[in-house]
């Protein structure tokens, strides 16, 4: 556990949504390691290596956090706020994925510097497309902020 590098941290308490998201991401080969936590407190413990995750290597931050808003214990907005206020995670890419249709949630999210805010489509197929688009955009197209000089794969042979 300590050394596995997580690609996506999925913070979600609905089992259906978890299953569908995992299935989509794996099928599209977008992420190798997806870690699921089911409430805000566990998300924070995971990211800040506290509580049950005290042994986790703090140098390994996930590449993307998919964050639901309505979560037990600590809700998504508060998780986002705490992440942005901590230097270890202030630049961590966070995408809110929520069923909430409240305009104020959208405004709040961007105000708290979420990278993007996505409303979960009700339709099964559209949900899949959305997860796929998120994975593609944030893992492949977007350039992530690198924290440390992690070991980069050697470039292809130049000759």
């Amino acid at each position: 556990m300590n050394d596995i590098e997580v690609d996506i941290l999925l913070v979600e308490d609905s089992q259906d949504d978890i299953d569908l998201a995992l299935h989509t991401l794996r099928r599209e080969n977008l992420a190798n390691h997806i870690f699921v936590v089911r409430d805000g407190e566990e998300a924070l413990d995971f990211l800040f290596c506290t509580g049950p995750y005290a042994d986790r290597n703090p140098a390994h931050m996930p590449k993307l956090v998919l964050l639901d808003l309505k979560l037990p214990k600590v809700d998504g907005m508060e998780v986002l706020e705490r992440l942005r206020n901590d230097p270890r995670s202030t630049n961590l890419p966070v995408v809110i994925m929520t069923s909430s249709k409240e305009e104020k949630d959208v405004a709040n999210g961007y105000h708290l510097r979420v990278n993007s805010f996505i409303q979960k489509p009700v339709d099964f197929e559209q949900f899949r497309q959305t997860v796929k688009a998120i994975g593609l955009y944030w893992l492949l197209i977007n350039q992530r902020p690198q924290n440390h000089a992690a070991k980069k794969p050697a470039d292809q042979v130049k000759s």
Partner: protein
Amino acid sequence: MKESPDILLVDDNPADVGLTREVLAASTHHANIHNVPDGEEAIAFLHRRGKYTDAVRPDLVMLDLNMPRKGGRAVLAEVKTDPGLRTIPIVVFTTSHADKDIIHSYELGANCYISKPGNLGDFFSAVQSIEEFWFGFTSLPH
């Protein structure tokens, strides 16, 4: 999603602006593109000052970094600290691949960072992906 979203394209290279316009014109979202060539004009546009009194509030900003007079970093710094403007998503779209530019942009509050690809096909794909993601899937603040 409103009928025709508005993009503020901040870029001083007319060639790149031309390519970007082409891609966006072909999309289903019919975005309106407003192009300004440097950071000062961008800020004036966003604050609706001077010749931009009637400017719309853009739904998305695509921001180059290296521009004369005022560059992209200054725009990021100003916009993302302004409570009235900071919720507007800003996509940094620039030639630089440098790590320090990437990190710095995020620190200044960029929503994402995309390096302009060298070849034409990839450039088109990149602009398409930006447009598709931000107008096809994302909820934007009003």
